[in-house]
């Protein structure tokens, strides 16, 4: 096989792995942000409730 084949294959595979890596980190971040939003939407109420409960406990 020609040398060019090896060159392009290695660039290709390296590119693929890097793209997969970037994609994974990116998507992971998106998913976490979405979860955080959901929690924030319901979480504000909980946190204040928690503070109240603690305040009442003292």
């Amino acid at each position, binding site marked *: *096989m020609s*040398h*060019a084949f*090896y*060159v392009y*294959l*290695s*660039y290709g*595979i*390296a590119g693929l*792995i*890097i793209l*997969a*890596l*970037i994609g*994974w*980190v*990116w998507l*992971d*971040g998106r998913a*976490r*942000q979405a*979860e*955080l939003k959901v*929690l924030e939407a319901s*979480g504000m109420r*909980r*946190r204040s*409730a*928690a503070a109240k*409960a*603690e*305040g009442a406990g*003292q």
Partner: protein
Amino acid sequence: MNDTSLAISKFSDLANPTRFLALVARVLPWFACLTAALFAVGLYLSFTTEGDYQQGETVRIMYVHVPAAWLSMMCYSVMALSAIGTLVWRHPLADVSHKAAAPLGAAFTLIALITGSLWGKPMWGTWWVWDARLTSVFVLFLMYLGLIALNRSMDDASKAARVSSVLILVGFVNIPIIKFSVEWWNTLHQPASVIRLDGPTIDPEFLWPLLIMAVAFTMLFFTLHLMAMRNEIWRRRIATQRRMAARMAGREASP
């Protein structure tokens, strides 16, 4: 009084990661742009420079292989530094840092392994030999995977961080072995020609694209590392908030 001191200390606990998140948000776009630009220049150079008289076209594999190989070791060093941070200062950011770096390191090691064997086929006539350099890199790859597996199999994040930092530090012996394997054992693999005490011995024709690609890879690593750390911090916040919610629900149910 108790309440306020608790609140403040908890706030300062969060302060570091919070400040870190703000910082990341600020620098990340710049890092990303810089990385892209460096890759553009690096790739352009690596395809336009002359081939080697000995190795012909395949020398271009070097521009991917060598930076990836360097990064695989640098990433481990970053993890080792973070591990010290975890064990000595017990800094939560250090925990996050080495946990986030492990998959990145594994990926770069994989690239070095694959491009290396793709280079080996035309140069040495075989995909793989069990020589010291190649095997020690393979061992590095296994160690990355082992650390990932270890981290995944414990769900107390801070304990997992502390325990795996011990292993990271013990495993650090492998890095000098990789670096100097070509000198300690005579192997098929190229001896170092760039990073050496008496200056690079490589032709500047190849040096420039190599260096630019190396910087590009390094920037890529740091960009991804920052992003992965940010993800990890978010993940922990979510877990904490969920647990808090569950606890409070329990409190209300059974007063």
